Structures are given as structure tokens and as C-alpha cells.
């Protein structure tokens, strides 16, 4: 085991897959000479050259489309969005070209492409730079979406995404890049985490906190506090939103009969709404309480420190949601 940052884990994943497959290339803003806005691609330009590590103009729609076109003829592009906030400009190429190409062509044109970058809020970046963008992508069939929350998951899932024959959106987190964690050594060979497998990050039994992405850390903190009050919480990290590990969701809910969904984004038609819908349909008789969702405040992200803190879903809100589904105080 090596202890490395989430950033380093992504960097290793990119490097290993580029070594393995000459058809893999990385394109995006500042990925080459600048080592990436968040330094995820540090050193890759020197190692793989400017043919495979490519600085793009600030043309999200254009370079996303270019990536899709390259994938149409068999390359395996990794397209980096500096942040997913800017990917909204490219959404047409992802939803209408990438996600539908295989279908419209009757199976003739596979679309092995990865779109990656940080999603969600960092610190005081204000309304236009603090959006959790999962929903724009996961809503559409033809796309797969993964949201690693730890270094190990980041490495294993990005490698799987690059090898996947379908378009995979890999959503990272600016606040995750410095997070350290254990990751299998490179020597120990190929470390890949299959898409579609959730991970029970904490074993409890009284209540299920289900979440994804960087929120797993908030969930774990909440679970630790709850433990002090004598409550044992399962913390289920979906890791992959599509494919979705429904079995794991149902298993924890059938065990605890109480669930809270925690996500960084907005509530209306959020990921949590989908999970709640699945739970109430497929574990109806197992629920002792409604599933409660904890999300960002339903407002654009404000700049002011205090307002931003209020807007974000925090540990306390998770705890009181757990208390609600446990009918405590």
C-alpha cells in the first residue's frame, strides 16, 4: 500500500492507462504546460509529449466535440473540464453526440471517451463556480457517471472509466485533490475498480447514510458523532451513479429500515430523489420512516463565508436528518 493524495492517484491512473494504451490522450485547458489547473496532470507532458497531453483553447463545446469525433474513429480521449461548471457549455456534445452515437448508428460506432474534472463547490467561489453537476449527466441514458471520494476509488475508477467502451463522466472534487489515502502499490499490479459497485465505507446498523463523491467525508464525520450518542450508522458510498449498485442500497436499507441521502447538489430532481424513489418502490415494507434528503440549500451558491457555510450540507444537518428518521428528540 502507498499513501498518496487523490490528485496523485488520478495522476497515476492517467499515466498507467496512457502507458498501457497508445490510443489514450488527455486534452483540456491548462493540462499540459501548466500541469493542470489543479495539477492532476503534473509531469505527464514531459512523459508523454504534446501529442498526447494537449492544451486546448477555452472552447469547451469544441474540444468536447473534438474528443467525441476522435472516439468515433477509435481513439480513447480523456477530456478534462477545468471544472464541470464550464462543461454546461459542452453539454450538447456529451448528451446529443457522445451519449447517442452508438444508438443512432445502430451499434456501429462505440464511444470510448472519458469526461473528467472537479464538480461541486470549493471555498467561496460563488454562484457560477460552485455547482454540483451530476444531474445534467446522470439523467441521460448512454452515459455512465462515477464520483470517487477517496484516492483509491479515484485511481481504480478512473482506470476502469478509461477502459470502458462507453462514455464515462468522472466527477472529482477540488476539495478532494489534497485528501490522502491508501492505494495499492503500482508494483502490486493493475488496480481497477469495476463501475457499478458501491462501497460500504462504514458498517453500522441503526441507520443508513447513503451518499456519493466528496460528501462521504461529511457522512463519516456525522457517523462518528452519532456513534458518541450510541447510534451506529451505515455509510454507503455509491461511487458509481450509473451503473448504480441498487442491491447495496436495498441491502443497507433492509438492514436499518431507515435512510438518509446526502448530496452536495440541489434537491429538485437530484440524485437523492432518484435513490429515494428506488428505495420506496423496492423496499417499501422495510421503511420505518420516510427517507430524508440532505442537500445544498436550494439557492445559487453565495460568496460570503457565512452564507456559503449555511448553504452547504453539513455534518449537523446529516445528524439531525438521522435523528428524524430515527424519531429521536
Amino acid at each position: 500500500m502507498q499513501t498518496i493524495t487523490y490528485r496523485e492517484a488520478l495522476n497515476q491512473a492517467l499515466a498507467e492507462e496512457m502507458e498501457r494504451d497508445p490510443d489514450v490522450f488527455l486534452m483540456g485547458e491548462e493540462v499540459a504546460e501548466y500541469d493542470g489547473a489543479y495539477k492532476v496532470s503534473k509531469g505527464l507532458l514531459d512523459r508523454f509529449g504534446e501529442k498526447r497531453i494537449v492544451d486546448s483553447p477555452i472552447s469547451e463545446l469544441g474540444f468536447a466535440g473534438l474528443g467525441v469525433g476522435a472516439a468515433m474513429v477509435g481513439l480513447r480521449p480523456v477530456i478534462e473540464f477545468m471544472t464541470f461548471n464550464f462543461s454546461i457549455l459542452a453539454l450538447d456534445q456529451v448528451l446529443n453526440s457522445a451519449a447517442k452515437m452508438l444508438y443512432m448508428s445502430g451499434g456501429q460506432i462505440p464511444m470510448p471517451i472519458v469526461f473528467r474534472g472537479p464538480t461541486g463547490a470549493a471555498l467561496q467561489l460563488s454562484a457560477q463556480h460552485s455547482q454540483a453537476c451530476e444531474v445534467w449527466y446522470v439523467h441521460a441514458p448512454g452515459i455512465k457517471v462515477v464520483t470517487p471520494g477517496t484516492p483509491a476509488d479515484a485511481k481504480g475508477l478512473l482506470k476502469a472509466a478509461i477502459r470502458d467502451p462507453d462514455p464515462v463522466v468522472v466527477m472529482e472534487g477540488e476539495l478532494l485533490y489534497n485528501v490522502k489515502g491508501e492505494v495499492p502499490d503500482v508494483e502490486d499490479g493493475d488496480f481497477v475498480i469495476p463501475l457499478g459497485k458501491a462501497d460500504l465505507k462504514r458498517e453500522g446498523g441503526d441507520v443508513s447514510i447513503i451518499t456519493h463523491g466528496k460528501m462521504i467525508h461529511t457522512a463519516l464525520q456525522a457517523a462518528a458523532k452519532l456513534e458518541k450518542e450510541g447510534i451506529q450508522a451505515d455509510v454507503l458510498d455509491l461511487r458509481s451513479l450509473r451503473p448504480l449498485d441498487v442491491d447495496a442500497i436495498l441491502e443497507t436499507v433492509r438492514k436499518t429500515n431507515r435512510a438518509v441521502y446526502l448530496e452536495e447538489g440541489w434537491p429538485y430532481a437530484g440524485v437523492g430523489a432518484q435513490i429515494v424513489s428506488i428505495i420506496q418502490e423496492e423496499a417499501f415494507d422495510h421503511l420505518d420512516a420516510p427517507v430524508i434528503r440532505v442537500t445544498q440549500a436550494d439557492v445559487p451558491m453565495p460568496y460570503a463565508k457565512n452564507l456559503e457555510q449555511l448553504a452547504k450540507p453539513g455534518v449537523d444537518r446529516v445528524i439531525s436528518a438521522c435523528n428524524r428518521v430515527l424519531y429521536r428528540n
Partner: protein
Amino acid sequence: MAGTKTKKKAADKEAGIDRFSPDQLRHFLREMLLYRRFEEKAEEAYAIGKIGGFCHLHIGQEAVALGFIGPLRKDDYVISAYREHTQALAKGVEPNIVMAELFGREGGSSGGKGGSMHIFNADQGFMGGHGIVGAQVALASGMAWAIKYRGGDQVCVCFMGDAAVNQGAFHEALNMSAIWKLPVIYVVENNHYGMGTAFSRVSAVPVVDRAKGYGIPAHSVNGQDILETWAFAEDLVEEVRGGAGPQYVDAQTYRFKGHSMSDPVSGTYRSKEEVQEKTERDDPIRLLRDRMYDAEMLDEEELKEMDAEARKLVDEAAEFADASPLPDPSELYTHVYAEENPHGRLYFDGRERPGQEA
């Protein structure tokens, strides 16, 4: 200044009929007759409900398709918008499977899933068939990127309508092709209208000038004259194959029919007279025919035979399409994903599907 030269290359070849062998000329005529009859058949089929949805005919613009695609190799790429039936034929896609796709049948090029706007045939290097105006321009840059990435010598030809130059994707894609010197030819099929909007109402400058800001050579060609278009394109393709980098072509043409089946041929946006004059004066097939008559390379007999041949091919295509069954219902869930990962759920509609829990 390279960015804005509009060399009328082909112009030198004005009367350049001698550039082509009699066989070549007959081939041109056969091809364009096929395209024309194919679209007329599609029109017929649409009228009796065999084809549904949007159906955009290419009638009047045949010489642009033949001129720019004919000189290509099989391993070159062609990509287009939704007015692409004849371009598919020109790239070697079987009339049968194109027609079957229009009919929405299992035997279609996309198994009936794509329809008129989404003809694909990877084997022939025909890469669609795209419905979002301008989107294919960026996709073309990507295919050209791949060619260069692999060190290949193929060329990518990207067709778009005149209205597509007003899309952001056009701007971003041309700029990237310019800075990376990609082997792509952007052909604007300038039929002067986007649906009911004259180009002059949505651009302050002519089509050919719209690439001036990128450092990409721009050219104009008479897209109704197959000899001029072919000669020009043949040379240009070789230049690009040789590393000349991206090219932009204003191919002047005219749409003889309405925008799509539901739209009027003429109306407030263009007069009956205009359409009549254009169709009479600028029919690419008639233009070629007359030049071959003048050069005594064709007589009416031969033309009749060729036309009969074309009609026979499209009749067969229609019969093939008609005989082809509707896609099997199980096809609804195929090709959404190339791989259903061993773990997790991909479909959330709660419906029964072959081989997955609801």
C-alpha cells in the same frame, strides 16, 4: 493572406470537360441520376407514410456531394448534417440500406434506429448523419485529429449548411483545426437559406468570408457544376492529404425542394420565380447532360438507359426496404451501452428487458 485567399482554382478549368474521360463523365451522370431518383423515391415513400419524422431532400445539391466525396478514398471520412442521404450514397453506402433506414427497418444502415437524419456506415467511412446544427463540425475536427494522431494520410470532409456557420461549435472547431493543422475540409453547402431565413439576413458578410478569422484558406466553388466542383475538390483533397491543413469551401448551390417534407418549396422567404429560375438554369444534372451533348459524348438513348438504370436501383432499394422487417422489439435496449458492466443497474424505467431485472 492565406487566411482569406479565395483562389477560384476550379475556374481555370471552366470548360475543363477534357480533364475527364468519357467513362468518368458517364459515371458522374449515373451517380447524380441515382441521387436524384433516390430522393424522389424517398419523397414518394414519405407521402404514403412509409417514411416518418423529418426528411430533408438533397435535390438540386447533388453535384456538391459527388464532387467532394467522389475523389475520396474509402478510408477517408465524411460527416454531415441531416440532409445527407445522397452523401451517404456518394461515399459508397448501399442504396438499399439507406432506404431501409429511412423506412425504419431492421435492414437499415442503423437497423432502423437512426432514420433519415442519422445515416451511418462506418465500413464506408460515412460517419453520419447529425441533427444538431453545427455539431458535426466539431466532430469532424476530432476525426481529423485522430488521423493526425495516428500519422495517417486520410482526409475528413465535413459538410454543413450555410446557417451552421452561425453556431459556436463552428467557431471553436475551425480554430482548433487551424492551430493544429488538421486534415479536414469544411464544405459549406451554401444553398443561401437556413429553413426560411436567407443567409444575408443572418450574416453581415458572405459565407466565404466567415472563415477569415481563423487563418484557414477559404475557397468558393460553383456547386452546381460537377466538373468544376470535382476538379477543384480532387486537387484540394490531395493538397490536404499532403499536409496543407484545414480548408474552408463555400460551395454555392440551391435547394430545389422545401426545407423538409413539411415545408413549402417557396413562400414568403423565397419566390416561386426564384425557385423556378434556379431549378431551370442551375440543375446540376441538366448542366452536365448539356455539356456532354455539346461534346457529343452522350445521346438521348444513352441518357434514357442511364436514367432507367437509376430508377431501377431505387425501385429495388424501396422494395428491399419494404421487405425488410421492423426492428425486433428487443432492439429497444441494444446499443444504449456497448458494455453492461457486470455490476449495477443501467436502466431505471422499471420495465422488463431481456436479461435484466426490472
